[in-house]
């Protein structure tokens, strides 16, 4: 497992101070508000957050999938050193699929129901290999389907999406995403629609393929369990901002942000005392049009204003931990580090999954 700081500098994907805003009738939605992270080849970054935390929006920005007429994007997204913010459609089209590929949550609605699986994979291949013959592209597609674990790929390639089960469809999607050998794979809730036994298969597959292709992977999910299984680094997002960022070990085992604590204490576990009540986070996630002033989490935070502090006025910066020599672990919270540590040990470590 690598710590995030080893990745900085020459990382394959570097996102710096990304901001994405949408103008709506009700006001400006600040979907992503100053987010920075990086992922290198062979590494997996897990982005965790609830609905509306900006996790999907930031990854769609990497692919340039926001309508420039309706959105305002600032900051830098460096894919292999090249800034993709503001690239024109032609350049973006070359990037998509070849350098950066995406797997979506719902494979049934992201595959075209009218065309066979094979036809869709062949099309994805030939966009980036215009000189490849149809038969060569088909051979590639069959290879790929075999590699993602679809039995009898030469036969199933002519099947339609509805003839595949949920897990098989997700495998087909992964095959399509990987057919051009991308360097960065973004998986947006790739297993949320699947059963646990199939989810386990798909997560294993993503891990195996990442090793084979040496790709960088961004896994977006709301499930801390999924993240703990395959992520090297974890980024916790709340209301479009980064709450906590570090290695999986740091964020999940020595969490420092009250929101991460809240998530950990909210998830029921397969271990520990089942009769103990969960400790949910009070209230609801905020509207991104009207983000609370100061720390966006303070209205829901059990520890806000403990020191009469600036939680309701000042936005906390994402700062590295100093006392605990944990390189690469950064947290955006006004609580002093020592206080966070004692709160964690007293209140959090006993409940839910935070063991």
């Amino acid at each position, binding site marked *: 497992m690598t710590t995030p700081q080893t990745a900085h500098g020459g990382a394959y994907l570097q996102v710096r101070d990304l901001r994405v805003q949408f103008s709506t009738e009700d006001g400006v939605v600040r979907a992503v508000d100053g987010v920075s992270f990086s992922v290198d080849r062979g590494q997996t970054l897990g982005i965790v957050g609830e609905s509306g935390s900006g996790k999907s929006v930031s990854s769609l920005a990497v692919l340039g999938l926001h309508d420039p007429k309706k959105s305002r994007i600032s900051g830098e997204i460096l894919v292999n050193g090249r800034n993709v913010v503001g690239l024109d459609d032609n350049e973006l089209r070359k990037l998509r699929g070849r350098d950066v590929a995406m797997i979506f949550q719902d494979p049934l609605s992201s595959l075209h129901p009218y065309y066979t699986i094979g036809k869709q994979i062949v099309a994805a291949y030939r966009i980036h290999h215009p000189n490849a013959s149809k038969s060569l592209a088909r051979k590639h597609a069959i290879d790929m389907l075999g590699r993602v674990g679809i039995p009898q790929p030469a036969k199933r390639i002519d099947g339609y999406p509805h003839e595949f089960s949920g897990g098989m469809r997700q495998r087909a999607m992964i095959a399509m995403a990987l057919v051009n050998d991308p360097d960065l794979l973004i998986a947006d809730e790739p297993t949320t629609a699947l059963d*646990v036994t199939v989810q386990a298969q798909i997560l294993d597959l993503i891990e195996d393929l990442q090793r084979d292709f040496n790709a960088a992977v961004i896994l977006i999910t709301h499930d801390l369990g999924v993240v703990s299984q395959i992520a090297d680094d974890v980024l916790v997002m709340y209301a479009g901002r980064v709450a906590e960022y570090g290695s999986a070990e740091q964020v999940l085992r020595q969490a420092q942000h009250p929101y991460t604590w809240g*998530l950990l204490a909210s998830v029921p576990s397969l271990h520990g005392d089942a009769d103990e009540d969960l400790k949910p986070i009070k209230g609801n996630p905020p509207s991104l049009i009207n983000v609370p002033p100061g720390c966006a989490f303070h209205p829901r935070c059990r520890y806000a204003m403990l020191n009469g502090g600036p939680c309701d006025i000042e936005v906390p910066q994402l700062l590295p931990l100093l006392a605990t020599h944990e390189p690469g672990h950064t947290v955006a919270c006004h609580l002093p580090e020592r206080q966070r540590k004692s709160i964690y040990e007293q209140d959090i470590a006993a409940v839910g*999954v935070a063991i």
Partner: protein
Amino acid sequence: MTNLVVPQQAAAATRTRPPGEPLLKVEGLVKHFPVRSGLFGAKQHVRAVDGIDFTVDPGETLGVVGESGCGKTTTGRMLVRLLEPTSGKITFEGRDITHMNRSSLRPLRQDMQIIFQDPYSSLNPRHTVGRIVAMPLSVNGIEPAGGVKKRVQELLEIVGLNPEHYNRYPHEFSGGQRQRIGVARALALKPKMIVADEPVSALDVSIQAQVINLLRDLQREFNLAFVFIAHDLAVVRHFCERIAVMYLGKIVEVGSRQQIYEQPSHPYTKALLSAVPDVTKLGASLGRIRLEGDVPTPINPPSGCRFRTRCWKAQDLCAQVEPPLDPKPNGSIAACHFPEVGPLR
């Protein structure tokens, strides 16, 4: 299946039903949906639920877990008679309700309510919250003491909503709050049992915990029996005392929380538990059981044990003889020829 009944509960329950009888008893319940492939294709049956038996005692929480297509939702809908069973028998408080007609069902529905998965589609968007929660009362012609409005506001308060929001519409509420409205509606008639079909799976993690805690408080406060249907094993462990695991229309194992989660007897239960990604397993990827392939089609389930096609312990016997649900060494009741022995890890 024997169950310990707390004496106090038993005493309260005897007023309405014969002593020693469970609140709900399901015997040999079957639901087959006819399907036809193509215009002249042969008529086939999806065997969604294929002969299940279980009981629920007053105030007991029974969890039903399984993957999609195992028949857990179909079972829940048959219990509240939203689906007509193909065969089998459902007994509620000693009365056979399997084929009761609509008018005799109505008083029964007061005792048995359902909470749905999707808080968006299960509330009428054109009705105010007040009207939605009052609907069970008006349908049954019940005039609570102090008036309908007072009762509705009481219910909203019980589920943690502001009673002043009586006149608002569902779209003005978040997902978690909508699910609370659904819970308030289910509680309106003071039911004895609630069937909850994936009540938290559409909610965000932090909101999920709020709703689970609410349901647990209500369960204790009103001594409600629950049939809690869910795919999330951790949520079920947290909420249910007893758990039934379903696979392809059959119950493969029933046991206490401790039996199911710490020493499961059926290989499928073991594999399910092993597949759950858990933060506490961080860094420990060894010893995981990986099931191959998908769940077979319920139109033509495998012979003998239905799990044998994915089971690592399967032998010839498994294809020939369907294993009965028997007590196993680990304590639970399971349908397996070669049960697991000893604790999970």
